[in-house]
């Protein structure tokens, strides 16, 4: 039993009876993110699955104030909120932008890069479900190689996933962290930490999506955990450029006992057309990423 389970904020900010799918990974991650952020937070959300979760006017399923903005302007609207709060002297309020991978990797990157360059004091959260799941699983630049989406139905996606974390690292921001709903306490702790830090903070959550990835809803946590075990997603944090592995990835890095990629791939329908060549190249891509991270961790 996790010892610090009882230290988690008991208040629920995401109310039951919302529009998220059965077994939604985002819903689980969002629950803990909000618990960690608590009151004194303003959210800004672009068009994404999260807007669906927030609900239709005139009711919402989230008790924290939220601004709905356009797809490309997530970070810009957050910068506006920060400026507005500073002008009215309410500096104790944290501004949190919560965008999907489409809103971060593709459409929102320009505004995000701008805000990060200006050092805007806000948290940008990217929940990465590896595609445009809200509109019916289209390919995004976060989709991994070999995945079937409705826009890559025959040949599958031929390119590797874009390394957004490296792009954010290049902006020299205060805090970068990756987290997953498979370890809610890790997610909670990182959000608590992010809230205390000043400056631009970027968080990435790897959230499994049952309808988009093609696996039964009950396996959401298992899938998120397998992503860590196989090294598809790496848990780390980077404070002022100092890299360190955290949680399960730390012990995987020390022991080097990552599972082969096939364990993760075979459970998902979206990879049913993956060729041996692609699988091989994806495994190599992941191994290279790990070597890179390990070099960074050694300093």
């Amino acid at each position, binding site marked *: *039993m*996790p010892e610090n*389970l*009882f230290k988690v904020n*008991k208040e*629920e900010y*995401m*109310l*039951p*009876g*919302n*529009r*998220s*799918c*059965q*077994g*939604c*990974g985002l*819903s*689980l991650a969002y*629950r803990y993110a909000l618990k960690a952020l608590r009151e004194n937070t303003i959210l800004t959300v672009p068009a994404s699955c999260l807007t669906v979760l*927030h*609900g*239709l*006017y*005139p*009711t*919402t*399923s*989230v*008790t924290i*104030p939220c601004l709905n903005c356009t797809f490309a302007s997530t970070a810009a609207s957050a910068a506006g909120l920060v400026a507005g709060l500073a002008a009215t002297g309410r500096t104790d309020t944290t501004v949190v932008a919560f965008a999907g991978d489409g809103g971060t990797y593709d459409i929102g990157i320009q505004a995000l890069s701008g805000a990060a360059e200006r050092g805007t004091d806000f948290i940008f959260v990217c929940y990465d479900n590896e595609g445009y799941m809200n509109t019916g699983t289209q390919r995004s630049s976060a989709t991994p190689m070999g995945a079937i989406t409705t826009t890559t139905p025959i040949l599958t996606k031929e390119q590797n996933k874009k390394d957004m974390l490296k792009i954010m690292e290049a902006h020299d921001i205060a805090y970068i962290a990756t987290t997953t*709903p498979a370890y*809610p*306490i890790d997610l909670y702790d990182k959000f608590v930490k992010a809230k205390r830090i000043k400056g631009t903070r970027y968080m990435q959550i790897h959230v499994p999506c*049952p309808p988009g990835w093609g696996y*039964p*809803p*009950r*396996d*959401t*946590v*298992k899938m998120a955990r397998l992503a860590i075990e196989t090294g598809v997603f790496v848990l780390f944090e980077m404070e002022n450029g100092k890299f360190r592995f955290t949680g399960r990835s730390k012990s995987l890095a020390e022991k080097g006992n990552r599972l082969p990629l096939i364990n993760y791939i075979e459970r998902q329908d979206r990879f049913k057309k993956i060729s041996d060549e692609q699988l091989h190249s994806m495994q190599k891509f992941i191994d290279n990423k790990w070597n890179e991270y390990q070099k960074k961790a050694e300093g």
Partner: protein
Amino acid sequence: MEKKDKNISAMSTPAIGEAGFTGDWRDMKPVIDHGKCIPSVKNKPACYLCWLYCPEGVIKTGIPVEIDMDYCKGCGICAEECPAKAITMVNEGDENG
């Protein structure tokens, strides 16, 4: 949130069950065996991994553990993650549920 700001033209108010009784979405429902459930067996607050992993937040931490069936979508994550295998998914409408 109670005060209406005159500068905001469209503002939603928070409410439980924004999408209606989402329990209607279920085809399988979770049933807890309190003979195996750790808090019930030990008779003290322990485990609560079902509460931790519930994406909806419909599980109440108490002795015994309770699930709000009005809003449980029946994803089955609790049954999958329960270390004591105390939760089983049974078909909606089954007698022994």
